[in-house]
């Protein structure tokens, strides 16, 4: 079994090497046969890696403890679904899974675009094959999940108990999909630079992939926070831990890219910037993976120290240097003259959005890497933790919310009187919210947040109301108006829906940070204390056990006003792993969560920590809404009847409007959509 897996992996590596070579040759000779051959090799590689993954999963399901990976990550007592998820539970298996995802995504992307953009696809698949090749070689030669033990133990060590959770089943695949998905726009951007076809063909071809990976990354982040909240027992869902930040940075850059890509499609502008942004997003994703897997930065999440560090570093350096070098080489070919963009326009708002998102990403990245750099230069160990990130994210987040509200009201091109009228309602909403918050809540940060959220919310709802109203005016009813908006302008309105979800999340985030209450008390049975509006009585300890763990529960009675509930936070000790896991008990409502943890116990005395976290449910609910909106974003637009496209006409005069028109025609001819029915 393990030989089959190892063989499949090695075969995958060979296919990748062949694919890269064949595509490189095809790019040189423009020979369609080599192109086809290279494409088939990439598909074969994906198939081989899929086989290797299947072999590993089979071994996990069959308790084949002869294979070291299975022995370390599964046990006879592990349920089958967690055994399957053990595929991505530790370094070697997750690298294999990652490689397979990358190969599959790459092959699918190339397959989808082969007819439309053959030259681009040639170079793009060569790039993708090289990327996959690196990871496969790492798996086949260095990490080797199919390593076999000298003798098969009777039982395996089992999965890290923290990972036995539905959130942990879903979170890594989502993140990996997000990371590898970013390779597609990257590969096509590289192809555009190499073949000098930079006019947006690459962008239109990969828009769906960019959106998909943005969505997967975002979903992965939220699910990760949800898992951490329910499992780790420190009362929060985001700790600004380096590994969390490593996934946040590419997501922020991808969000910036999604917005500025729209500007490029509409106006043909900022090609260079978009190319750079795509490269940065992908490099950030690779850097993030590197940080997560090599334990370079101190973190609670680190995989065990592994040997792949130096190879991975070399890889990231090669990718970054190669991409930026290529960009620098082609710099002069990219200059199309400054586009004319008005500050008071949607393009302008999107540009400022980019500045803020990229600034945010840079701040998070610098904060994450700062300890490492200082350690290398000065030999001192420092930490950059929540105080820094909160100080950075609060003002940037506020500014982004304001921009969100502005951009929804601003038109493309240039603002006019109508815009100012449009902004009346949001401004009034902001003022009203500020006054209400100022009187009732009195905290300047919360007041500012309330005003910004109200502004953006009113602006977004107004956009939906306008769509409904125009439907009513056209005789199709309010709902008909909304349906039309989602049918003909899906991207725009799905984007507004995502914004709505984000706003709900922001409300949850501000509430849970600003108004959290916490108390830590040592108690004897029968003693009680209050936290927030709740009264907590400690009733005693319950002891139990499973085959794998000693279980101790504290029984806490929660009372507030009329209602009461019982919370049983638990402390588990796994003797075989010598690991203590503390699982919180959470009573969750829309208003707040009561979150209880058993910190320590001695006899029947217990030290208990109880938080009251307001509005946490809003974070998850908002995440769901945003996710749904994101899914809608992926749904291809309904096309309006095809108009005859004018012949390609290179613009010789410098008039910006005509140049923009020419660029639009180029984009249209290359398959990007600028049509009436699908304008973003």
């Amino acid at each position, binding site marked *: 079994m393990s030989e089959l897996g190892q063989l499949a992996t090695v075969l995958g590596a060979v296919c990748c090497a062949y694919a890269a070579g064949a595509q490189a040759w095809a790019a040189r000779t423009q020979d369609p046969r080599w192109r086809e051959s290279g494409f088939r090799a990439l598909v074969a590689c994906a198939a081989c890696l899929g086989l290797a993954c299947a072999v590993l999963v089979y071994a996990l399901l069959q308790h084949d403890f002869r294979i070291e990976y299975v022995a370390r990550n599964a046990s006879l007592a592990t349920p089958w679904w967690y055994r399957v998820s053990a595929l991505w539970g530790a370094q070697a298996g997750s690298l294999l899974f990652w490689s397979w995802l990358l190969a599959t995504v790459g092959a699918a992307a190339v397959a989808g675009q082969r007819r439309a953009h053959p030259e681009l696809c040639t170079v793009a698949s060569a790039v993708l094959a090289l990327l996959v090749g690196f990871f496969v070689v790492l798996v086949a030669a260095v990490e080797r999940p199919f390593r076999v033990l000298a003798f098969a133990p009777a039982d395996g060590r089992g999965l890290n108990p923290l990972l036995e959770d539905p959130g942990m089943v879903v979170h890594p695949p989502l993140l990996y999909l997000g990371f590898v998905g970013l390779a597609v726009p990257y590969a096509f951007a590289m192809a555009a630079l190499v073949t000098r076809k930079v006019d947006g063909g690459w962008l239109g071809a990969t828009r769906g992939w960019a959106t998909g990976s943005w969505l997967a990354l975002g979903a992965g982040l939220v699910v990760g926070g949800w898992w951490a909240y329910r499992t780790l027992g420190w009362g929060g869902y985001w700790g600004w831990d380096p590994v969390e930040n490593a996934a946040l940075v590419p997501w922020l850059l991808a969000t910036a890219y999604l917005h500025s890509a729209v500007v490029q499609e509409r106006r043909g502008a900022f090609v260079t910037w978009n190319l750079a942004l795509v490269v940065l997003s992908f490099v950030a994703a690779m850097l993030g993976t590197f940080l997560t897997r090599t334990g370079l930065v101190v973190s609670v999440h680190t995989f065990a120290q592994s040997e792949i560090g130096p190879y991975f570093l070399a890889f990231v350096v090669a990718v970054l240097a190669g991409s930026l070098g290529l960009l620098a080489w082609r710099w002069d070919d990219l200059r199309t003259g400054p586009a*004319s963009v008005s500050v008071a326009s949607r393009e302008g708002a999107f540009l400022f959005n980019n500045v803020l998102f*990229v600034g945010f990403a840079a701040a998070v990245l610098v904060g994450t890497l700062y300890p490492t750099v200082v350690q290398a230069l000065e030999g001192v160990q420092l930490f950059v933790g*929540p105080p820094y990130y909160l100080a950075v994210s609060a003002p940037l987040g506020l500014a982004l919310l304001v921009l969100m509200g502005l951009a929804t009201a601003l038109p493309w091109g*240039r603002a006019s009187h109508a815009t100012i009228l449009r902004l009346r309602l949001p401004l009034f909403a902001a003022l009203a919210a500020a006054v209400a918050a100022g009187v009732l809540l009195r905290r300047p940060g919360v007041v500012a947040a309330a005003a910004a959220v109200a502004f953006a919310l009113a602006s977004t709802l107004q956009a939906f109301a306008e769509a409904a109203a125009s439907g009513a005016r056209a005789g199709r009813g309010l709902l008909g108006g909304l349906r039309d908006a989602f049918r003909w302008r899906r991207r725009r309105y799905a984007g507004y829906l995502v914004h709505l979800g984000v706003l709900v999340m922001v409300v949850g985030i501000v509430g849970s940070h600003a108004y959290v209450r916490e108390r830590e008390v040592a108690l004897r049975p029968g003693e009680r204390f209050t936290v927030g509006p709740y009264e907590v009585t400690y009733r005693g300890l319950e002891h139990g056990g499973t085959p794998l763990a000693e279980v101790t529960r504290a029984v806490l009675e929660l009372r507030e006003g009329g209602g009461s509930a019982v919370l049983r936070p638990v402390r588990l000790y796994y003797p075989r792993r010598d690991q203590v896991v503390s699982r919180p008990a959470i009573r969750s409502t829309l208003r707040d969560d009561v979150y209880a943890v058993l910190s320590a116990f001695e006899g029947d005395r217990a030290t208990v920590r109880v938080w009251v976290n307001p509005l946490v449910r809003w974070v998850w609910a908002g995440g769901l809404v945003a996710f749904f909106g994101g899914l809608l974003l992926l749904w291809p637009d309904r096309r309006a009847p095809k108009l005859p496209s004018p012949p390609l006409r290179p613009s010789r005069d410098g008039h*910006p409007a005509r140049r923009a028109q020419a660029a639009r025609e180029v984009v249209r001819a290359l398959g990007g959509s600028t049509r009436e029915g699908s304008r973003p």
Partner: protein
Amino acid sequence: MKPVVLVLCLVALAAQPAGAQALDDRVRAVASRLMCPVCEGRTVAESTSQLAAQMRALIRERLARGEAEEEVVQYFVDRYGPSVLAAPPPRGSGLALWALPVLLVAAGAAYVLVRLCGPGGPEEDAA
């Protein structure tokens, strides 16, 4: 007018957290400025370890005694060194860290405003 002002003042006063609550908030504020020495990358406020619980108890005792938050933080820095701080102070090399986001965003916004912004294209439909 006066009764309205009075009511507003009472509402504002009522919105103040009670005394014990304020102490809890201050403990949490100090605890989130310190990294737990035995954990990998968790603040004292978040950490579930015994040392962190003991540090929180000590913070509470000192704050209740009337010490200022800065003094309590300094107490731990004196014993554990600057690596116990959850973020470097904005002095010396820490300045680069804190200044960078500000500079980057300011530079980007300035670039957008100066280089790129002009009269704009034709106005197109916005809804």
